[in-house]
């Protein structure tokens, strides 16, 4: 019976054989990116998620691209002009550009790509952003004319984020397979997609914006935040998105990695259903807005991942007004307002949140903050799809959600606050004729200074009416190993590794 230990040793030896030494170091010229989730599809007409966009925007391009400040810049179009009535946009296309399959990029491809998104049969999530387009016309081989239903200035930004150009011939030929191996004009060519594991791209040596510094890029999908960070610190990846909050402070002084943060074009909010009592009374809404100590909320729960919001426009927006203050924390004034509304005795507030650790930690703070107003907060937790459904059907009293979009103030404000969007994403059922007027004008005016004034006034009125409490703007965080050079997060919150406008991320690995 003394032979039993031998069996243990044997087992241990088998396990040891399975475990070779440290993973091999990555070859030079390879950049490995750790993403939070796998993309859904590489067909730009069918995708809506950030992860898909993050990958295919390296393979495909639009007529226009947003630079790191969010300003539309030439991409596949070299220049554009607007007609005097503001409805016709004529784009001069870049000549001599080839798709990765060797075919030439022409006006036909532009028409095909945009028409396809506009065709209801495509069931494209991008249709909404382009729905102002009435027609796309091929003027000649290298000129395209886009006509909008009404003057619509935000079209440039929307084209940049929602109208990626696919080659007509390859897309028709590949059909559904295009979503698995896209062909574009971008700085990187498609190599492979191993489901749930990685997507590999390689440098496009003929890119008009110059050959990328990296030979290969590998996107790996690592859902668990702490593991993503461990991979970065262990050298398994070079760049990660979404750094776990508890590690932020440590990483800020790390000798191994650099931390990058950008305030996204978003706002996080508490919405009131303004069609139900007592939230149909503006004083009640303002009272709640003033009773919430946003700073405390951010300090306790969100810490360094968020900056306080005064209104819907984030500090990175070109329409941001640094002198504007929303509802400052003022519990005394809040109590007065409630008394004026005849609700000094308080009421029960039904509050809907979706499942997330942070939101569950926020809720008790809110309960405490509203208790002095005699408001009893009753929290219901549901999963996000359920919240979304109840939001769209306006089956709620108050709820906690966020709004994330492209850097256009029109995208940040129009559908949540314009009267015409009631029944859609104006889920607070907010109406203010003056705001409607401003939002309508903001779309049609090309004068940038005038647009800034319009959106600032609209923001002031919206915050005054308080259909929502604007809590904070969330940051998107990235971490890179020190060897990574030239990475800067894009204002829209996504990873951009190479553009003709000075971005060319590389690793300094020997």
């Amino acid at each position, binding site marked *: 019976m003394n032979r039993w230990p031998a069996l243990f040793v044997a087992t241990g030896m088998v396990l040891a054989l399975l475990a070779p030494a440290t993973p091999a170091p990555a070859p030079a010229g390879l950049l490995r990116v750790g993403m939070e989730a796998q993309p859904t599809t590489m067909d730009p007409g069918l995708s809506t998620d950030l992860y898909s966009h993050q990958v295919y925007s390296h393979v495909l391009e639009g007529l226009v691209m947003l630079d790191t400040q969010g300003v539309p810049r030439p991409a596949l179009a070299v220049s554009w002009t607007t007609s005097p009535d503001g409805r016709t946009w004529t784009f001069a296309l870049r000549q001599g550009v080839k798709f990765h399959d060797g075919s030439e990029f022409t006006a036909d491809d532009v028409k095909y790509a945009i028409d396809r998104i506009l065709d209801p049969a495509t069931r494209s999530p991008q249709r909404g952003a382009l729905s102002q387009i009435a027609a796309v016309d091929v003027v000649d081989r290298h000129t395209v004319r886009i006509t909008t239903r009404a003057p619509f200035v935000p079209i440039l930004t929307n084209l940049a984020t929602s109208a990626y150009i696919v080659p007509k011939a390859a897309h028709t030929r590949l059909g559904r397979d295009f*979503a698995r191996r896209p062909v574009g004009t971008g700085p990187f060519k498609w190599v492979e997609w191993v489901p749930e594991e990685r997507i590999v791209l390689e440098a496009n040596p003929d890119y008009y914006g110059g050959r990328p510094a990296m030979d290969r890029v590998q996107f790996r999908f690592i859902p*668990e935040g702490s593991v993503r960070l*461990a991979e970065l610190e262990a050298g398994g990846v070079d760049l990660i998105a979404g750094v776990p909050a508890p590690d932020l402070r440590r990483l800020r002084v790390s000798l191994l990695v650099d931390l990058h943060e950008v305030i996204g074009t978003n706002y996080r909010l508490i919405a009131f259903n303004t069609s139900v009592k007592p939230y149909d009374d503006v004083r009640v809404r303002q009272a709640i807005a003033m009773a919430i100590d946003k700073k405390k909320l951010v300090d306790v729960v969100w810490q360094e991942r968020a900056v306080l919001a005064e209104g819907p426009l984030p500090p990175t927006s070109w329409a941001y007004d640094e002198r504007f203050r929303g509802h400052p924390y003022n519990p005394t004034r809040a109590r007065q307002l409630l008394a004026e509304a005849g609700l000094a005795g308080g009421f029960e507030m039904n509050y809907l949140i979706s499942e997330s650790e942070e939101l569950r930690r926020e809720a008790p703070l809110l309960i405490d903050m509203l208790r002095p107003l005699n408001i009893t907060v009753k929290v219901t937790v549901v999963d996000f*799809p*359920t919240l*979304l459904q109840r939001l769209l059907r306006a089956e709620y009293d108050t709820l906690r959600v966020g709004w994330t979009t492209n850097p256009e103030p029109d995208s940040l404000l129009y559908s949540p606050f314009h009267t015409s969007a009631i029944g859609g994403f104006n889920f607070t059922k907010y109406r203010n004729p003056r705001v409607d007027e401003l939002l309508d004008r903001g779309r049609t005016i090309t004068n940038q200074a005038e647009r800034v004034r319009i959106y600032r006034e609209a923001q002031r009125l919206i915050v005054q009416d308080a259909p929502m409490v604007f809590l904070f703007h969330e940051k998107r965080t990235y971490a890179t190993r020190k060897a990574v050079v030239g990475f800067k997060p894009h204002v829209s919150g996504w990873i951009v590794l190479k553009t003709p406008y000075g971005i060319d991320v590389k690793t300094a690995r020997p």
Partner: protein
Amino acid sequence: MGRYIARRLLAMVPLLFGISVVIFTIIRLVPGDPIVIMIGVEQATPDEIVRLRQVLGLDQPIPVQYLKFLRRVVTGDLGLSLASDEPVSRLIRERLPATIELTLAAIAVALAIAIPAGVVSAIRKYTVVDTAGTVAALLGISMPNFWLGVMLIFLFALRLGWLPASGRPESLVGGLVTLVTTGDPSALATAAAHLVLPAVTLGSALAAVITRLTRSAMLEVIGQDYIRTARAKGLPGPRVVLRHALRNALIPVVTVVGLEFGALLGGAVITETIFAWPGIGRLAIRSIFQRDFPVVQGVVLMIAVVRICANLAVDVLYAVIDPRIRYQ
């Protein structure tokens, strides 16, 4: 035996039918609209949602939708994913090998640890070795996968740097093929290195269960008359333990492993998420959150089929291990 297996396989049909009805109905009764999630918060307008629902046939009554689904499933077509417009069967096929590899590795790890540990515990009853085994088993059962997984990554990947933290760049089978065809062991080593931590994580609870099970089964068998007879005949100790005792003690172990195979398949969800393992669990989670009905149905049906087959395999194995068991 052949007729028995055929009968069991035939019995799968009504069972799968029942499962499909239940999963089809339940996933549709859960609130949350796949269309809204699909086209995104910023873009959805009411008429757009109504139109898309028509296009995808989601506006029809659930029984009608079910009959259409059934007609397609009979021909082997699981439909298209709502989120990515890809065939569900392909989505599953691409991910199933990774999950099965992980599950089998977890079972292998569990058996490799548990059977020796259980046998030693039984033979050295109430000694330090036995107590240590009991404590280890208790730990194995009590430690949640998500915690154990992250701790293992911190220790073996980050601190010691012995093993990769996550991912599956190679499959074990692919690595074997490379080794056989080109004689290059590096692919197999990569695959094995990536498999160790997830397999240990997933297998830890099972290892604990089997250790305890082996120990008690061994204790029971060792007390039997035929073991005493074997010893009295002067057979060497290890031979008695291995040939006579362990073989009989393994019957309950086989049952548990068979049943656990299905459970592990489902339990792999957490382990796959932690280790970024490209398996079926991550597809299932994402599809549930996207209310991607066809994919959820496909995954559940697939897991059901595997589980039923595992149960059948257990019953067949009984007969192999214990010649007294015969099926008609």
